[in-house]
């Protein structure tokens, strides 16, 4: 099986699905001739032409808004937002429209689009290039939120997102784009949305992570008998897999790089409290970014959860 990094895996998913489905078109800043600032769309302009690989003006709301219009018309647009921190002007389009057209029209119109955006800290980039605001989108009924953590699932999840009949926010962990290489098959291998995966089985503690943090969690917890859950889809998240693991271990640590307050860990912790409190042997711990804006490169490692913080949380919980 060919070994690929995440950039190659995402590129392959786009290429194969575009060959299969002529409704798919790509639009965004620098996605055409330049192949995207991370080269995710490299070579696609040559393969599919300007009709389907569309370089747009610099206008995030316009890009997502135009994608909404294309989706309403019957296409399957993929809008690239160059960095997640640039998506804020497009919030209105996502929240007020992409998420609501199906509901607003009682199913007469729908909005099958994918918004791809690189996210996460630790790439020595300028301000607003390292955001991790995934929780905002989880609070929008009508959109799905998917966060792959490596090349294999990135390809499979993107295939599922491109075939989904509803809007999907697809967040790509920038720090891992070229860090992890693994077997990624050619051809059709969809990883279903809404299903978490157990990356490593264990008995003492359940550690839940996604996207960029998964790699740190796996590396940090090698010496522990931890069950590691990779959420993959944040909205709707796989409650069943989470609760089954919690019932087994009785201890939960949630790791995310977004600020703690109202991060997606809060939703997980609340759900576990509602559904599984009698299984718990200790409090649900969150290892998260502090409630501050993401700092620039010199201080970013004091912001991001690291091995020491992840292990400390697990150690403390194991004492209960």
């Amino acid at each position, binding site marked *: 099986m060919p070994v690929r990094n995440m950039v190659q895996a995402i590129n392959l998913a786009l290429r194969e699905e575009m060959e299969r489905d002529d409704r798919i078109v790509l639009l965004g800043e620098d996605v055409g001739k330049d192949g995207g600032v991370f080269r995710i769309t490299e070579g696609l302009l040559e393969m599919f032409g300007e009709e389907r690989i569309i370089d747009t003006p610099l*206008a995030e709301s*316009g890009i997502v808004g135009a994608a909404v*219009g294309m989706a*309403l018309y*019957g296409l399957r647009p993929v809008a690239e937002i160059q960095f997640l921190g640039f998506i804020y002007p497009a919030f209105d389009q996502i929240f007020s429209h992409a998420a609501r057209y*199906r509901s607003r029209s*009682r199913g007469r*119109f729908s909005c099958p689009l994918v918004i791809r955006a690189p996210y996460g800290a630790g790439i020595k980039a300028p301000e607003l290039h390292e955001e991790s605001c995934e929780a905002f989108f989880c609070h929008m009924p009508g959109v799905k939120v998917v966060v792959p953590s490596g090349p294999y699932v990135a390809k499979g999840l993107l295939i599922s997102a491109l075939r989904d*009949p509803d809007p999907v926010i697809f967040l790509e962990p920038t720090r891992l784009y070229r860090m992890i290489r693994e077997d990624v098959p050619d051809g059709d291998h969809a990883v279903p949305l809404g299903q978490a995966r157990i990356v490593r089985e264990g008995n003492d503690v359940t550690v839940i992570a996604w996207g960029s943090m998964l790699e740190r969690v796996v590396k940090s917890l090698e010496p522990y008998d931890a069950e590691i859950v990779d959420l993959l889809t944040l909205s709707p998240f796989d409650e069943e897999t989470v609760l089954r693991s919690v019932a087994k271990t009785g201890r939960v640590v949630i790791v995310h790089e977004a600020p703690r307050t109202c991060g997606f860990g809060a939703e997980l912790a609340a759900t576990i409290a509602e559904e599984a409190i009698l299984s718990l042997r200790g409090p649900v711990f969150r290892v998260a970014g502090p409630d501050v804006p993401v700092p620039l490169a010199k201080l970013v490692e004091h912001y991001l959860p690291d091995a020491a913080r992840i292990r400390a949380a697990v150690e403390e919980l194991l004492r209960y």
Partner: protein
Amino acid sequence: MPRSVIETFPVTRLDILDAEGNADESLLPPLSREDTLRLYELLVLSRAFDGRALSLQREGRIGTYPSILGQEAAQVGSAFALEKSDWVFPSFRETGMHVAMGYPLDLLFRYWAGDERGLVTPEGLNILPVCVSVGTHIPHAVGAAMAARYRKDPIAVVAYFGDGATSKGDFHEGFNMAGVYRLPVVFICQNNQWAISVPRGLQTAAATIAQKAIAYGFEGVQVDGNDVFAVYDATRQALERARSGGGPTFIECFTYRISHHTTADDADRYRSVDEVEEWKKRDPIERLRRFLEKSGFWTIKYQRELEQRTRETIDQAVREAESAAPAERREIFLSVFEKRTPRQIREMKGVDDAGA
């Protein structure tokens, strides 16, 4: 090196029918007698719908409603030029467009009464749900036009909005993309002079709204928005241009919101009665009636029959709207996604059980 003028930009305005009902014969669009009477009847029907909606709101039978009084020609005249296959992205004050396109009136009443099922556009019409968030649907029209071009469909896309929307970022981003890609889209602004309490002069320092198109590389034209012939003709020409690959057009319909912003507003707080009275003299329907009378197409008998017919149509629509089966409570879950999420399924059961 001399200082030189490198570009000049004319802004045109079109007037065909004046307030007394006199038309400039050389500019009259190619409309038959039947077409012209049909236009008149649609204007009358739009105003009747509007009046009934205001009454129903006062009786508590529908919710907040935005009146179109005074803007009927801008809406009916433009929509009359459209084909059913065209795609229409309305704002929330487009009753005249809905009427002219043949959107079922009972559905409109149901929507304003608070029933989303009123936005289920019948098959064969491509009218999108009303957009409450001002101007944010302009990029959708642009995207639909991109899709139509990609599909090689010989249609045009139309977006309706007001003067307030021209201050929004999405107006700029949408117009800019429409110009860059020369898309088959027609933008119709009903400049009704007021965005709730904010007058046109506080929306923009530009002399006209039409001229904004120039900066995006396509034509903007101002028309007398109370002149149904001017609106129709400008729209017809813009649609021809769109369908033949000539790119977008922006039409500013210069009109006036005679009524309050909505039934929840009191316009007397911020504008003078004199101003409103001045604009009432330029009524779009009365001027077409005068034209028809001068042309020998209009009689008192015709008017009485038309009013009777219109009343019956509205009565029937209200009856149908109010006798529709109430929505089931679980309906709020049914169209958020194509398939319910596990959590929604549990929540839906909770709502069902609460009603059992």
